[in-house]
């Protein structure tokens, strides 16, 4: 287990006041909140912030943490000294939400049950949430996924433990990124004779090397040689459900989208597939190629900057 320097997480000295800690947390939490931040490390950073703040905002936990002394360095191998927490009581607000803190945090502060299990009490189990990554092709065909879910559960002593559970899930055809599946009775078990909660699965797509997705519409960039775009051509293009024959009309400009109606994600109505031409200029490397470009220049009365004339010198 590695020692964690919770002060370093906030970039604060150990002498920081509670007010300074709160201010640093708020500022960094806004920056790294996974729902707001586009930083790829946002989720990891935000979790570290939450854990550090859970310790430093609580005067008792902070005092206990501080008592271990400042000789520890972040990342150093660490075992809590025996009896390190003597005289401290970590009661009150649980950490809740099955927050998945580090081994370091758990070794020091343990896990606390959200609700003590009282015999004879019946209650519906809590609803749970998880995220599932699927391929775009799965949304076209429907799929079956085997998920491994880590879920907090209460053990016999009423402590929260993380349990691994496998679950086979049917992904319906036509599902889109950001949508949720509700699986009745697959959430947390109920207390006593209470029914189990539900499991909500949020769907997200793995990034695709060829296709972009917006809602139910799918986009494909199609590189074209200048003469293919100018004269038109017939091509085989990929779609998530196999190749189709596409007629590129003469005079296709870069960025002008060709719509394949109903070839997006299936549904009622189905989405469309948009082919976005991108014109690729061949390099003029050899003498023959340069000659061909010169012949083009001669053949065309073409001024690429005609629209700039008279605007400025």
């Amino acid at each position, binding site marked *: 287990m590695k020692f964690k320097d919770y002060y370093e997480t906030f970039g604060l000295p150990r002498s920081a006041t509670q007010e300074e800690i709160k201010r640093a947390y*708020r500022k960094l*939490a*806004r920056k790294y*909140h996974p*729902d*707001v931040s*586009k930083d790829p490390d946002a989720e990891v950073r*935000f979790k570290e912030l*939450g854990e550090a703040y859970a310790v430093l905002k609580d005067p008792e936990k902070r005092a206990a943490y501080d008592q271990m002394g400042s000789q520890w360095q972040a990342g150093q191998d660490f075992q809590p000294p025996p009896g390190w927490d003597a005289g401290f009581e970590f009661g009150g607000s649980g950490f809740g*939400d099955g927050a998945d803190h580090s081994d370091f945090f758990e070794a020091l502060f343990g896990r606390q049950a959200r609700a003590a299990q009282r015999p004879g009490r019946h209650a*519906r189990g*809590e*609803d749970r*949430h998880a995220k599932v990554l699927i391929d775009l092709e799965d949304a076209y065909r429907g799929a*079956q996924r085997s998920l491994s879910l880590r879920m907090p559960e209460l053990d016999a002593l009423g402590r929260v433990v993380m349990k691994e559970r496998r*679950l*086979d*899930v*049917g992904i*319906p055809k036509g*599902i889109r990124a*950001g*949508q*949720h*599946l*509700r*699986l*009745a009775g*697959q959430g947390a078990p109920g207390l006593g004779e209470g029914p189990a*909660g*539900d*499991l*909500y699965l*949020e769907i997200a797509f793995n990034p695709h090397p060829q296709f*972009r*997705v*917006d*809602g139910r*519409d799918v*986009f494909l*960039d199609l590189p074209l040689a200048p003469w293919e775009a100018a004269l038109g051509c017939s091509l085989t293009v990929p779609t998530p459900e196999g190749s189709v024959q596409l007629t590129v009309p003469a005079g296709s400009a870069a*960025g002008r*989208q060709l719509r394949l109606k109903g070839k997006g994600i299936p549904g009622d109505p189905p989405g469309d597939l*948009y082919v*976005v031409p*991108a014109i690729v200029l061949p390099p003029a490397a050899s003498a023959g190629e340069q000659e061909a470009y010169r012949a083009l220049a001669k053949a065309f009365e073409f001024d690429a900057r005609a629209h700039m004339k008279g605007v400025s010198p």
Partner: protein
Amino acid sequence: MSKKHTEPACGPVVEEEIHLTLVELCQACRVSEEYVMSWVSEGVLEPIGEAPTEWRFAGQSLRRARLALSLTRDLELNPPGVALALDLLDEIAALQARLQRLGSAWPTK
């Protein structure tokens, strides 16, 4: 437990097939009714129906309510702050969708 071949778990697509009651939405987000009511009064969530007991939330409310909860809890935002943040996030999402449609010349990530 006996090991037998089980059918995969299936369920409805929340956004397309479900309207949630106030109780269901609170259970799904593990949040109190007071929070959901404060978000309704700020226009973050727009249920159909008059009295809270008659409210029906469209499936899209699930994602919004979860977002509202995490902003409330993690950033200690009040309901008007949550409403503003969600409006801005919606706007960013719409702009990003436009970038997606424009193509690879405009990378989004």
